[in-house]
């Protein structure tokens, strides 16, 4: 009887442990193993390859530019997302006529599949028939449809900002809702006290709202960091990382490599995985997430 008692917690924790082992640990181990194998493009495992996959990866002329671009991508997307969401959360926390409708509207980009949103933006930016270009033509910003001026996704300098825009567009709803939930947990008496002391609006926001919002903000931003870094559908469906590799992030690069060298692609995945962990660690350090809010 006693023995069974000891085993009881295992029955409760067991499924979760099995799940984590199968769905998280096993693929990670397989990924790392593959990165040291020589695998033909057709999937035939040719044997152990030492660190050759990594040597080849780091020697790619496009590797470092891609890594740098990934970093810019994460910082820009998460940065804009958080700033916009902070403002939107504040707005939606106020009572105003039509707030319910506005809140529902905010869900739309979140409810639509990311791939679908990306394809819609791609078509809106189409040089021949895209609505955004039709408007630009009618405003006199471009001379005619179909030319290089109308082809914003064709050049990295204009394509990358659009990719960032779409990524922010699909990330804002979740972040805003997470922050709204955070705002709802701040007790109103703190604000009353601040009012009594004659604190300005800015001061109240800076010294009360933001610190109390930090747990929600940290979680929201952290989830964004990881997911934006691994984001694939937006860039792939809008530019394939082209021209050249000039709009490719490391996830896109990994996918392209998979077409020519599976081992090298796995090595890229491992680097990617490491980057996410490093980014997360840096992020948690900066936001000092364990420190209690005073």
């Amino acid at each position, binding site marked *: 009887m006693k023995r069974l008692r000891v085993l009881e917690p295992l029955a409760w924790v067991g*499924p979760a442990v*099995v799940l984590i082992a*199968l*769905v*998280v640990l096993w693929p990670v181990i397989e990924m790392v193993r593959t990165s040291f194998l020589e*695998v*033909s*493009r*057709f*999937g*035939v*495992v040719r044997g152990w390859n030492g660190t050759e996959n990594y040597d080849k990866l780091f020697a790619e*002329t496009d590797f470092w530019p891609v890594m740098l671009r990934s970093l810019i991508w994460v910082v820009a997307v998460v940065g804009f997302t958080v700033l916009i969401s902070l403002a939107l959360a504040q707005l939606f926390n106020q009572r105003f006529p039509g707030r319910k409708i506005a809140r529902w509207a905010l869900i739309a980009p*979140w409810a639509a*599949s*990311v*791939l679908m949103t990306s394809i819609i933006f791609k078509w809106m930016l189409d*040089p*021949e*028939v895209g609505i955004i270009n039709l408007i630009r033509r009618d405003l006199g910003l471009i001379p005619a*449809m*179909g*030319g*290089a001026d109308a*082809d914003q*996704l*064709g*050049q990295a300098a204009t*394509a990358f900002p659009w990719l960032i825009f779409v*990524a922010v567009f*699909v*990330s804002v*709803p*979740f972040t805003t*809702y*997470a922050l709204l939930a955070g705002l709802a947990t701040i007790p109103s008496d703190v604000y009353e006290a601040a009012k009594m002391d004659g604190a300005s609006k800015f001061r109240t926001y800076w010294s009360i709202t933001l610190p109390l919002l930090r747990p929600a903000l940290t*979680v929201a931003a*952290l*989830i*964004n960091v*990881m*997911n*934006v870094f*691994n*984001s*694939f*559908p*937006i860039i792939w469906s809008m530019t*394939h990382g*082209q*021209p*050249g*590799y000039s709009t490719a992030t490391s996830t896109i690069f990994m996918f*392209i*490599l*998979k*077409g*020519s*060298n*599976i081992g090298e692609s796995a090595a890229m995945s491992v680097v990617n995985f490491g980057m996410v962990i490093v980014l997360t660690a840096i992020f948690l350090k900066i936001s000092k997430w364990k420190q209690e809010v005073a």
Partner: protein
Amino acid sequence: MVLTGPRISSLGGFRRLVWTNGPSDEKAVSTVNIKLVGGAALGLATMLVLSSCGGGDAGTPAEGGSTGAAAGGEQVTLKMVAADYGDNPTADNAGTKFWKSVVDGFQAANPNIKVEVQVISWNDIDKQVATMVQNGQVPDILQTGDYSGFVKDGLLYKTDEVLSPEVSKDMLTKFADFGKVDGTAYGIPFVSSARALFYNKELFEKAKITEPPKTWDELKAAAEKLKAAGVSQPFGLPLGQEEAQAESFLWMLGNGGGYTDASGKWTINSPANVEAFQYVKGLVDAGLTTPNPGTKDRKTVWEDFAAGKVGMVNGGPMSIPIFDKGAVNGKYAVAPIAGKTGPLDTTLGVMDWIMAFNKNGHAAEIKKFFDYFYTGDATQKIVDNYKLLPVTNGGIEKLSGDEKLKPFLDALPNASFYPFKDPKWSEVNTAIKQTIGGAVKDDPAKVLGDLQKVAEGS
């Protein structure tokens, strides 16, 4: 905790497993009921266990024991993987529907053999098949764009083990020869296609061009006239990810160049090829082509041609259905592709392959299926549905009356092919798709030189 969050949540919506982006993942986190997660965990664990059990002996009939010949009325299941030539998975010409009609006919004639066909889109088939091979779960039959990489490791049946001599004999010799590695045939030609120049007759009239260009100079003059007549893309130039290797090859051929020389040595940055790209770069710089060609897919440019916005474009028989659905229907014509000094006497030929894996030992059943496929009306259905060209003498004869397909059928016997049997081709091809567009934007010699380095690298 955070790490596992999104993953568990994907169980709530399987469709997100592939196309996940951060925030959309989190939506599921917030909606998935906690109890459900527990249930899902158990469910998933069960599923994985089941599938791993099933996977080990996949392809072997449940009754077991059968290797090869279907003796004594034993049921054999052939697993087949095929590429989708249809417009999309729900279109009337979707691959699943085509193969179902073939398999239904075959199973009615051979009640002992069941054929399970998995149709995969061209975008995914290479990667998915590679995963199957890596996991040791190969199908019995595979229909895709290349066979050569499986030969070295002894994964395939020889052609004469799975194809009747009568069928083999009917294959176009030049095609069948490409199915050989070191003199032994492994790949069976499935369908083929060739390229030619499509031009919009209405736009040509409007620009007062009397006949399609034969030389590069004529092509440039025609493009300038089209531009002056207000055509936004005088020449459609898809050098983007989808099929840059095809468009590039046609321009190389126009100057007597190519990816390799006659002896099979890589010549991507040969003077002829560099000159060809310098000429194309001139067209691009003058605004006579699709803007930023290095980012444009074939599909997009063909759709633009179908909408009447492109003056000329290189296309194949498979672009005919797309053009016929558009505004350009009935207003376009086909001509040989212009070369530097005259029309090309060769063109790009593409062949797709069907092959049999020997792992499950179903040679006899596979032979029955292949013979049924090549001798029945299935090949005719492919031509009707997809405008792809047959690979047998008999099939080509049957088509000789088709006006639209004639230019392509005529071009087939003298077509040039990718050096796909070279082990470096897949790597080179990947690099070409991604970067060759840079050759018409930056320095052609540098871009082609970098590609040559990829080809020559270890």
